[in-house]
């Protein structure tokens, strides 16, 4: 039975593919540049992502129902399709590895100080590969569940932190220069470009015509989420303090205290974030697996999942010698890589499809 997902599940997958790991770095990345006006940056980023949304909609309109790579092979030929698959495969491998490493670092630094990093990374990879191996339907259902829980926890968080908010931290409003604001909106753009996973999910969607809508909703949800997270962090900690913290969001959550009996509620709230990180890793591993299956003409197999899991874990553990190198990579290189990869590849695919369509129309006219 071919697995199918609903538009709602596709939206949840997209939202989960964008937000969780961004949560760790976005407040730092944005507030360092945009200061107290950082909460505006994700809105600006959403505007910058609109051309990519247009490309997604344009590609999805030409989609003919075949598996994605087979469809591209029909339009561009085997060599070009394999090239695209390899490029995307490399992107999702690096994406998976950076998620696993970023996640492992956080767990190691915050909770499992004495546990070897490799053990934590392996556990994360095992869970991600397990979810991926269950198929896209399961990824969709898990993503939806996690999205609802995350929203619930975000709501609880907003409420519990109410007493900690200092609205003066937002003042003076609109002080940031436009150029700084534009610069601050670049990192969220990088994370938001991951909405392109919708094109890989398209063959599994019950209604492929809704791919664009799912991407739009996913991007909108993620942008609102970014805005809220930046605003909460700003309101609790203020722009000056954030710059000196590794995980400002979690520090802000850690300030919750209700009477004498509820302390460090942040650990419970972090659990929801951990669930979304597992989901995000599984989405990236799924995309990587799809590209590998096509590039090397493989068939889904349990042994392949083990190999992919080990490959991702090894890449995560041995690509960066120090934890600080990972943070530096995520702060600088990854944002640029995400923008270049997602904009360029899918823009080229769209242009290619336009030309292929015109060529086919011309040949039809001649015959």
């Amino acid at each position, binding site marked *: 039975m071919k697995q199918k997902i*609903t538009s*709602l*599940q596709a939206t949840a997958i997209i939202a989960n593919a964008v937000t969780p790991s961004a949560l760790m770095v976005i407040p730092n990345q944005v507030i360092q540049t945009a200061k107290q006006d950082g909460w505006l940056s994700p809105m600006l980023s959403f505007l910058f992502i609109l051309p990519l949304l247009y490309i997604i909609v344009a590609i999805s309109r030409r989609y003919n129902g075949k598996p994605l790579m087979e469809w591209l092979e029909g339009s561009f030929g085997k060599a070009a399709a394999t090239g695209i698959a390899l490029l995307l495969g490399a992107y999702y491998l690096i994406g998976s590895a950076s998620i696993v490493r970023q996640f492992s670092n956080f*767990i190691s630094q915050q*909770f*499992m100080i004495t*546990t070897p990093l490799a053990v*934590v990374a392996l*556990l*994360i990879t095992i*869970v991600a590969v*397990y*979810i991926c191996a*269950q*198929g896209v*339907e*399961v990824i*969709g*259902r*898990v993503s*939806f*569940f996690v999205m609802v829980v995350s929203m619930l926890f975000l709501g609880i968080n907003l409420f519990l932190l109410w007493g900690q908010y200092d609205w003066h931290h937002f003042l003076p409003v609109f002080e940031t220069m436009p150029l700084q604001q534009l610069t601050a909106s670049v990192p969220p753009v990088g994370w938001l470009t991951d909405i392109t996973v919708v094109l890989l999910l398209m063959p599994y969607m019950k209604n492929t015509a809704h791919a664009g809508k799912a991407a739009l909703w996913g991007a909108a949800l993620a942008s609102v989420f970014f805005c809220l997270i930046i605003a909460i962090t700003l309101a609790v900690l203020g722009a000056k303090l954030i710059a000196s913290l590794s995980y400002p969001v979690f520090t802000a959550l850690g300030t919750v205290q209700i009477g*004498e*009996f509820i*302390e*460090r509620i942040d*650990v419970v709230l972090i*659990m929801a974030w*951990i*669930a979304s990180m*597992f*989901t995000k890793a*599984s989405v990236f591993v799924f995309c990587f697996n799809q590209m590998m299956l096509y590039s090397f003409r493989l068939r889904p197999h349990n042994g392949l999942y083990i190999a992919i899991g080990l490959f991702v874990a090894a890449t995560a553990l041995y690509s960066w010698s120090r934890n600080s190198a990972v943070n530096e990579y995520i702060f600088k290189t990854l944002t640029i890589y995400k923008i270049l990869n997602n904009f360029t590849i899918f823009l080229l695919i769209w242009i290619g499809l336009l030309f292929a369509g015109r060529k086919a129309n011309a040949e039809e006219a001649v015959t």
Partner: protein
Amino acid sequence: MSESTKSGIESGSDAVKALSADLDTNIKWLTGELGSEPDIVIRQLQVLRNKRAALVYISDISDNGLINSLVTSMLDESLKPDAGEFEEEPLQGLMLRSLSVGGIRKLDSLDHVLLAILEGCSVIMLDGFATAIAADTGGREKRGVEEPSSQTVVRGPKEGFTESVRTNTALIRAKIKSADLRMEYKLIGKRTRTTVVVVYMKGIADEQMIRDVSRRLDLIDTDSILESGYIEEFILGKTFTPFPLIQNTERPDAVAAGLLEGQFAIIVDGTPFVLLAPVTFVKFFQSSEDYYQRYDIASFLRLIRMSSFLVSMLFPSLYIAITTFHQEMLPTSLLISLAAQREGVPFPALIEAMIMELTFEILREAGVRMPRIIGSAISIVGALVLGQSAVQAGLVSAAMVIVVSFTAIASFVIPSVNMGSAARLIRFGMMFLAGSFGLFGIMAGLMVILAHMSGLRSFGVPYLTPLSPLVPGNLKDVFIRVPWWAMKKRPALFGKATARQGSAEPNAGNQGKSNGEGKGRR
């Protein structure tokens, strides 16, 4: 033995052996098959003016009163003045006039004769005829309808299924007096020949699903079915999961409610546990009582049950994780108290919890097996003496005894024993993860469980429906139960989302009965 009778038996294939026209040949074959045990009765008699006949039955599984009446009616027929009327077709005569039992049928093969005898029927064979008559005289000893032992309720019917398939079908028919109630009978098990009945509501249950279950039952190739658990495992095939994918119940009202929501039931002769499928995860937290009590209290109790499931699955592991890795989560006074209790305990929290949990599991298993007379004494020894002594000896902390006891009590709140068992199994895995990775390990375990459950299907219905995939219309009976009048349509999960109430049609049953005296309850 004449040539014709010889060929009569041998001409049949291996599967079906035809009856011979020679009565002695048939009796000889049956004696060979059944042996000459004392409960096998072969009564030879003269009927319909000197026709030789044989009545074969197994006395232990037959109703002797019915058999006596059967014999009397056959013998009396010979004395009637018009007894010669059916001289040419004596079998027809027996069937139409003589046999004083309700269910009779013609049999053409010795295999069918043998099966009918083993089912408790009395078989009448006439000399010179290659056809026999089976009269339904079955009547084994059976338990009466009693209150179900595993699913008791405060409010609601007190009747439960029994081991007799006929009693069980009757109990369902008594609940649903509709022509749409369908029952498909099957015989499964080469040696036990167990009667299995698939029950469903035509027009409500998904027909494709009924065909599928029927096919799965037909594919069962085994020599014995002694309980519905056999059927459960056979029809689920290679599905590896700790979660139950088929519900079992002793309650006819639960089966009736399930049938009316589009589920199908499988009744197996010899067990009071009737299977109900397809089923979703949330179904295991619904009790029959939920629908008999007010919706507010029913909703509250349902939330208690769901919380208890989480407690039963996670409480020991959360205790281990927090005391081992996340002490900062505890208020200082509680932390000091716990630390003081654990000071003399020589084991880490994981080992301590494992010892206590295993001890409790052993006590529970012993409680089920031991004679009831000494059960309470052992419970006192287990719960009080062992628990208190272990704390005093410094082997476990008092807090751990509280955690394990509360977990044990919570596991009994879940209405389904199967789901409770799943929570017990998962608990041990979660404890290990908590002891190794703290809350992060618990979260990793929960994600695996969530993914596993998301992939499960019960006869094509996703296990986590209506939560994920989301079916908003069915959320009225998940975490809370809305009032009956608000549940206008039956759930669309198992069958068609047809209207359950609120249609303009008057209650046809009542109309016909009493000139419109009672047009529905409301």
